[in-house]
């Protein structure tokens, strides 16, 4: 059952001069019946390695569509998307799954931890799909949990953890494959203010340590944590630059 790909290890990090994200003229058009809705129009975006970018916009602005394309959960209708130097715009579902596994770490608003699994079992999930052996998975998962300050909670189920801790586990899961991009979709949307500060502090630390982070939010307070903010409205990037 070994697929050629599952045997390969994590890809090496990209060359320093290569941007992590490079969107050029990206359109996304949804067709529902005869009606065509343009969710994204001519998006150009570059995110350099080590950058911390917030994408802000109200609901219905195309924010989620952009996040899906950045996360390789969807492909653009036209335009090109290069993720860490690889053209992600023309891949089939299997290749997209592969690139998500190797290059992207997701942090979701609802945490999306599997309730039946302990913290470290949740963290090791991406490594299973990457084909790592049992011992190495455990070692890496525990290291990632240690990284987010939850080494002593490795055997706890999500239900035994606070919201902030759960989101930290999710961040550990996102980090465990050493991805080129950490993609956080409203990571504080379900957290109280203390936990929000907690998670944003963690992202700050990761950014300071060199991680490339894209944060999607509709809250200005959260966006302020990022080094750079872009606004999206009606499917277009409105203005780039610090708030």
């Amino acid at each position, binding site marked *: 059952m070994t697929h050629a790909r599952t045997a390969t290890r994590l890809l090496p990090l990209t060359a320093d001069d290569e941007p992590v994200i490079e969107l050029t003229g990206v359109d996304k058009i949804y067709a529902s019946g005869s009606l065509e809705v343009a969710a994204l129009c001519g998006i150009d975006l570059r995110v350099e390695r080590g950058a911390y970018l917030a994408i802000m916009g109200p609901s219905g602005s195309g924010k989620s569509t952009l996040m899906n394309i950045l996360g390789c959960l969807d492909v653009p209708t036209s335009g090109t998307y290069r993720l860490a130097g690889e053209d992600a715009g023309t891949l089939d579902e299997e290749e997209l799954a592969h690139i998500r596994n190797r290059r992207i770490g997701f942090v979701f608003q609802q945490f999306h931890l599997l309730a*039946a699994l302990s913290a470290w079992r949740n963290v090791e999930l991406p490594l299973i799909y990457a084909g790592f052996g049992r011992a190495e998975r455990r070692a890496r998962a525990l290291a990632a949990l240690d990284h987010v300050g939850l080494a002593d909670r490795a055997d706890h189920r999500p239900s035994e953890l606070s919201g902030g801790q759960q989101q930290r586990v999710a961040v550990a899961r996102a980090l465990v494959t050493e991805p080129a991009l950490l993609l956080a979709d409203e990571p504080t949307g379900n957290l109280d203010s203390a936990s929000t500060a907690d998670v944003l502090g963690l992202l700050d630390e990761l950014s300071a340590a060199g991680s490339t982070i894209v944060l999607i939010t509709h809250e200005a307070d959260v966006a302020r944590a990022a080094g750079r903010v872009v606004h999206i409205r009606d499917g277009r990037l409105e203005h780039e630059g610090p708030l």
Partner: protein
Amino acid sequence: MRFSETLRFAVQAVLAHRMRSLLTTLGILIGIAAVILTVGLGQGAQQQVTSQIDALGTNLLVVTPGSSTGAGGVRGGLGSASTLTTADARALSSRVVAPDVAAVAPVSQASETLTAGTSNWTTTVVGTTPQWRTVRGRTLLEGRFLTQADLDSVAPVVVLGPTTASELFGLRDPLGQTVSVGSVQLTVVGVLASAGSSGSASLDDQAITPQSTAAQRILGGSARTTVQSIYVSATSSSTLPAAYQETRAELLNLHGVTTPDFSVTSQESLVTTATSVSKTLTVLLAGVAALSLLVGGIGVMNIMLVSVTERIREIGLRKALGAAPRVIRRQFLIEASVLGLVGGIGGAALGVGGAALLPGVIGSPVTVSPLVVVGSVAIALAIGLLFGVYPAGRAARLTPIEALRRE
């Protein structure tokens, strides 16, 4: 992703809903147990019939006289004529005339009451030749069988069936003892071994005497050389048709007739009829069992669809984390197979257990062959797999965006 990991996920998912998984596997379990038991019952019945017929003698042809026409034109049934003689039997023994015939035994028999001391027992007295033992495939428990010398000297000797011997002599050794048939005293020279556990009682309950002794001293009758039937055994089952032709041709020739005044029957036709009956029964029962398996399979599919719907967010997450569609498909296929396999193994255990208990309850033999057990477990696995295809395909086709957004 490694197979062992996929299997682990599948087993975890099955164990996550123990009650539900149990009830789902129950459908398969009952189906498999039913298949094993019905096939076992069918095979048991078939074996019983076959061995009973085998006990009559393999490769056996039986020649019986044709019908007689009495005074006033009343025609008797088959066997009512007295056209077969010891001469016929001797002629058939010739290797030249009938090369495919291994042994020939003429038989005359009647029901007689035997007495030994104070006990008596009514049984079938058979007058025949030493070849009878070969033709009927019998062995001796003790003593000896009839010899040609017995036949030639009209010796007053008898070989008893095991049932007859115990009825007359109980635990005493019958060898050398005397039994009386009417006024004739016969010395017991041997006892037959039982015709086997499945043999019908009549095979073990008879008294064998030389044909000459029976004809001249016991049975009497019009012609002392007339016999009731002639057993003919072919050299092998493959030469049975040839032996049939030779027997028929020789008897037609000897009797100087063109239409046979006798009939030759083989056990083959009996076996065919008997097994076809039990086969039909087995097919019918197995069909019912297969239907219950189908229902069990639909149960698996139903639960797998529920499972996919219920775990839609988990599927979305796994996909976002890098599980390719084929990986998700495999996970759910294996999950369905695990349900099928567990049901199959449980069903096999129940079936084998039932097969051990059932004969005591209903009195019919149940034969469980390892092939059927292994086969039905494989079928259960295949059913799980088959009915998992559609739910697994649905899970694999889910887009991670939709699946993650689902509340």
